[in-house]
């Protein structure tokens, strides 16, 4: 017997209403994909595609894919796609952009692809100031191979080949790639977003747009990192993904803009900002609430 409280959701409403968000985001040909339940990568893909659409870049975009779970989208988009090898997308994007300077070129890579296998590719491309946008979906694991340690895995994080948690002594420290890129003169826009909740999604969407705008302006290299949930590679139930992420990866790879208009803010500075804001908030609450 159907629950009486349930509102029917099998068809568009009869009342006058405006469609504000569609199933399959613009440019993703087919909604179905075989990524895991609760994966954050499709959400990030949606953002990248929507930003292209909003800036009207669809007919001049070329997306270069790395190899990771996100590769599932490489034959699934309604923009032109070039599939690169694991780690190599930034060089491939360079070749594309140099021959087609009028296109908007972006890469879709993972932390394993970009920060492990292909670290020097992205750094060299950034140093060269290639007018491309590199996108990194950071879940702190090689998701596709089954949840192994990458160069962004945070200390203590349990992975399939660091089963007692990443131990700094044995495995070293995670690389905050955005901080490295920000220091390169050829990089003009560097940001770290996340998809753990709707607010983060909205902020990340803006980052994509700014990055593409920087590219169109020909200013240089732009970079967007997006923290994405990987419940499978983290060995946790899907609904815990967002919280696990904010408490592990998100504590180290802190969300924010790391370089805008030549001004660099380090991840530590973002962290200190967050702490300060938090303290101000608490103080204000202690004083009896925030009065705008």
């Amino acid at each position: 017997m159907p629950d009486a409280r349930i509102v029917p959701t099998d068809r568009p409403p009869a009342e006058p209403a405006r469609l504000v968000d569609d199933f399959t985001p613009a440019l993703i040909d087919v909604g179905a994909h075989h990524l895991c339940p609760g994966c954050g990568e499709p959400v990030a893909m949606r953002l990248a595609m929507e930003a292209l659409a909003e800036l009207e870049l669809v007919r001049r975009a070329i997306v270069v894919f790395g190899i990771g779970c996100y590769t599932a989208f490489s034959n699934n988009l309604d923009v032109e796609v070039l599939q690169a090898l694991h780690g190599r997308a930034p060089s491939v994007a360079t070749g594309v952009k140099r021959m087609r300077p009028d296109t908007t070129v972006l890469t879709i890579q993972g932390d394993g692809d970009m920060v492990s296998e292909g670290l020097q590719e992205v750094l060299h491309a950034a140093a060269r100031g290639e007018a491309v946008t590199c996108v990194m979906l950071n879940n702190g694991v090689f998701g596709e191979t089954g949840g192994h340690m990458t160069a962004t895995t945070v200390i203590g994080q349990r992975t399939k080949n660091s089963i007692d948690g990443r131990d700094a002594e044995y495995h070293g420290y995670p690389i905050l790639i955005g901080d490295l890129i920000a220091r390169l003169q050829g990089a003009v826009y560097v940001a770290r977003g996340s998809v753990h909740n709707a607010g983060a999604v909205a902020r990340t969407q803006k980052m994509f747009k700014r990055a593409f705008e920087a590219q169109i302006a020909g200013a240089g290299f732009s970079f967007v990192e997006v923290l994405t949930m990987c419940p499978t590679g983290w060995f946790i139930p899907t609904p815990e993904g967002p919280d696990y992420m904010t408490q592990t990866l998100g504590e180290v790879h802190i969300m924010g803009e790391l370089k805008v208009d030549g001004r660099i803010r380090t991840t530590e500075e973002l962290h200190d900002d967050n702490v300060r804001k938090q303290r101000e908030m608490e103080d204000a609450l202690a004083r009896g609430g925030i009065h705008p």
Partner: protein
Amino acid sequence: MSTVTVRGTVVIDVDACKGCRLCIDACPPQVLVMTGHEVNARGYRYPQLLAGCTGCKACSQICPDFVFQVYKYETPMEVPV
């Protein structure tokens, strides 16, 4: 019997859902609930809507499987709960 303001609604592509529950936690007015025992064609439980949707897109923006279409009503409605 009280009422709730309904500013929007969603269409749910039930069979596209993989049951991850991200939408449930993401919905600000908490008007999405998972089915109890019913599963979709792929064997997953899926979300259902209660009255009170605001059309905020939080569910559609976080759903990894693009299950939602979100509509905003031209005029909000008061619905009894």
